């Protein structure tokens, strides 16, 4: 009997204790603690970066994590644009052959320090040579570190394009190219060519701890690395000696939340200040809510429907024109993109500096399409396959749905179609081999140069390399983009590109469908966020609204701790 009552009281005690703990715990979170500290910014990220070195990965997650924070390049993009501006290089000159680039380097730039290493010298030419040669030379001590490969560097053929890089003096380097290539400066400004510290590498090599180099990265960027817990968070602190700007953000945390719905829930609950990759429904919700806002910028990407011009009947330009006229792209943008995209008229979007303003729009006109089919000798129609990519991308959130809409539109001009899909890897491999008749795909720019669209997607070389999925090869078009690549004057380049776009519009190897903007959700008290058309992240200029009444000071003991971070 006494046992039972004892047991009962202990259970009751346990329940009471548990509820006390729960209630106390709850009270802690009523106002998320980070709100109390105005200098902590939390960014809700979509995944865990595989590495913190942008040289070794083209994944957007890595780029977002490392290039907005740890590293600087020689050249940089003006925030929110694709215009170049000086970064670690203050000026550059190109000789008359267009192959020798001389860079004057910024003086007095300091590298970060960490628990292993503190730098004894400032940034100089050795670091530039070290960083580029790491990617270029197989004999470089860090080249084969972690079995790294350098997908962007190799993909752009930079290993052969860069003949030589040499030091003129401590603050001047010269890069010699094997051929004139005007997009080279844009390539240098991509996050894939960060400048790393040679001194750090030498130091680690001496201590035989080279494997720490990319795991505890050191750079010159505005934030320095503090800690990374995979699948959980990335933590940075402000680098107070940054050469360009001192951010008002003292501590920066990337809260890794892969599920988009939970990411939005976290954001709405105020657990993070900025959120990347919202779904269309999140943007709608944000527009209805006063405490959060959605910002967007037009992006350099394109979704397209490519016709395999090597196959009958797509080798006939009239058929391609007819198919293009038959598709109601307005409806596609309404239902596939939820109106969060603009209709594309060419490979380049309006945010590119070489965009052709006079490009005439292809109007939806099934009657004219029928007429053209008649002229081409296909009055009774034909059957075709639409290959729809099986994955979701920013430029195409639902290729399957898009294919179904195209299917309906084609029925109206008497064309039967089948939708084909495979697992992503297989899909790409087969499309590269040209097994498709027509395919729905897209492209996201990695540097701001128009060449980044036209050469890989539409040149003859790319039709052999198989990233030109229309397998379209026009010698005049190729000639124009080659001339544009070798020309250094931007006005002349633009002329060439506009002519090339006109050729594209006449030949219609694809039907361009949409350009989608980059979106970000931010809390109202966060100001000064700029989005890049290239989709890269930047915290430059981001600050907290002064008028916000939400900011409370941390107790002194906690504040000191925050400052130590």
């Amino acid at each position, binding site marked *: 009997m006494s046992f039972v009552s004892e047991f009962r009281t202990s259970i009751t005690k346990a329940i009471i204790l548990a509820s006390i703990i729960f209630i106390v715990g709850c009270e802690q979170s009523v106002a998320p603690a980070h709100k109390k500290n105005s200098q902590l910014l939390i960014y809700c990220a979509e995944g*865990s970066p595989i590495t913190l070195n942008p040289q070794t990965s083209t994944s957007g997650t890595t780029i977002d994590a490392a290039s907005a924070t740890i590293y600087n390049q020689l050249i940089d993009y003006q925030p929110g644009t694709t215009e170049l501006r000086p970064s670690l290089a203050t000026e550059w000159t190109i000789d008359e052959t267009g192959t020798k680039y001389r860079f004057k380097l910024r003086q007095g730039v300091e590298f970060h320090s960490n628990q292993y290493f503190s730098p004894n010298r400032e940034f100089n030419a050795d670091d530039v040579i070290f960083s580029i040669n790491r990617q270029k030379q197989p004999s470089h001590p860090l080249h084969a570190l972690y079995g790294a490969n350098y997908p962007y560097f190799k993909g752009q053929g930079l290993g052969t394009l860069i003949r030589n890089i040499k030091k003129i003096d401590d603050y001047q380097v010269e890069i010699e190219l094997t051929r004139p290539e005007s997009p080279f400066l844009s390539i240098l400004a991509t996050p894939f060519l960060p400048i790393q510290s040679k001194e750090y590498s030498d130091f680690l090599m001496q201590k035989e701890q080279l494997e720490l180099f990319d795991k505890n990265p050191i750079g010159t960027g505005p934030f320095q690395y503090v800690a990374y*817990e995979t699948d959980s968070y990335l933590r940075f602190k402000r680098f107070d000696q940054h050469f360009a700007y001192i951010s008002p953000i003292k501590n920066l945390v990337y809260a890794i939340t892969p599920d988009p719905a939970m990411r939005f829930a976290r954001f709405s609950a105020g657990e993070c200040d900025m959120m990347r990759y919202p779904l269309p429904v999140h943007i709608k919700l944000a527009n209805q809510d006063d405490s959060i806002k959605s910002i967007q910028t037009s992006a350099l990407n394109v979704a397209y429907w490519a016709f395999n011009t090597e196959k009958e009947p797509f080798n006939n330009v009239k058929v391609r024109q007819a198919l293009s006229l038959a598709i109601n792209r307005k409806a596609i943008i309404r239902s596939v993109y939820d109106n969060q995209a603009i209709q594309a008229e060419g490979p380049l979007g309006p945010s590119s500096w070489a965009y052709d303003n006079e490009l005439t729009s292809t109007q939806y006109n099934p009657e004219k399409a029928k007429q053209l089919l008649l002229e081409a000798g296909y009055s009774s129609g034909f059957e075709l396959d639409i290959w729809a990519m099986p994955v979701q991308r920013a430029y195409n959130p639902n290729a399957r749905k898009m294919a179904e809409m195209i299917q309906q539109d084609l029925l109206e001009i008497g064309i039967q179609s089948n939708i084909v899909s495979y697992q992503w890897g297989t899909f790409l491999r087969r499309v590269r081999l040209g097994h498709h008749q027509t395919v729905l795909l897209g492209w996201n720019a990695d540097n701001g140069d128009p060449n980044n669209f036209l050469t890989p997607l539409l040149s003859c070389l790319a039709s052999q390399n198989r990233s030109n999925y229309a397998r379209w090869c026009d010698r005049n078009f190729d000639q124009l983009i080659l001339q544009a690549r070798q020309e250094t004057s931007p006005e002349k380049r633009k002329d060439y590109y506009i002519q090339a776009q006109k050729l594209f519009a006449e030949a219609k190897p694809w039907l361009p469908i949409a350009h989608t903007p980059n979106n970000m959700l931010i809390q109202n008290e966060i100001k000064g966020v700029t989005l890049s058309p290239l989709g890269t992240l930047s915290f430059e200029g981001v600050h907290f609204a002064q008028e916000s009444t939400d900011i409370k000071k941390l107790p002194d003991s906690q504040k000191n701790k925050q400052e130590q971070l």
Partner: protein
Amino acid sequence: MLLSLFRILITALVSFLGLTILTFGISQQATTPLHDYQSTHWFPQYFEYLGYLLTANWGNSDLSGNDVFTELLKHFPASIELLSFSLILAIFVGLFFGIMAAKNRGGWLDKGLMSATLVGYSMPVFWWGLLLVLFFSLYLGISPVAGRIDYAYYIQPITRFMLIDTLISNHNYGSAAFFNALNHLVLPAVTLSWIPMAIMARMTRSSLVNILKFEYIRTARSKGLPENRIIWIHALRNAMQSLLTIGGLQISILMTGLIIAEYIFAWPGVGSWLLSSVSRQDYPSIQAGILALSSLVILFNLMLEIMANYLDPRKRRPLS
């Protein structure tokens, strides 16, 4: 006793070997070979693979190049923390509800609890998790949405059990950090434990109802023992038998739930690590994650069987 213990151990070992055959198969998918094998045929290679596993050499990730075993150890504490909380919640609350229902058989409490558990039983983990977040975090605002602790607190990982780290690591946040971590644990643990808790409650109820019909219970009642003592001491002990078996089965349900709950709540455990490895097609990590989670299931079942063996006097009989 010894003989049955031996039998249990052998069964566990066989399941473990079956598991390693599976993970060996997965490890063959890695782009760079996981280990340097001496032999060329797969059969002797398998035994070399076992040797590597036992010496904690589980290979390196295809993508990051990190040692998979270290990565696994990094993610394990978070999972264990969540799992043990959910398990405690599932067992105790489930038992309690089951007993309440059995005591009031046919009453409104019984009916209410049983329909509630039926709802819980049929609720998918991801849906339940989202609902809880919607209600407790977004509507009521009394619980954090995801993560292990508020990022205003920077806790150096020592044991990687957040609750322990907030207590032992050197910081100035006081007990606030501990309670913040505890608060972050509540929603994921409730989400995860819901299904096992419902099953536990239903099982407890049905076996108790059965047992309460037995003669010895009637004897106890006629002896004038208080009802609570009859249920808690006499009936429950017999019900434990079947409950332990059911409990063992719950572990695997808990594991599948774990992967989903970790993904939803951005909980940095083995489950979310496994899931992100799958999406990256990082076979060495997939292999390690599966091996770890499944070994845990085997281990739990082993422990439960030994416990069941101990509790059942018939099985405890010495060799004759």
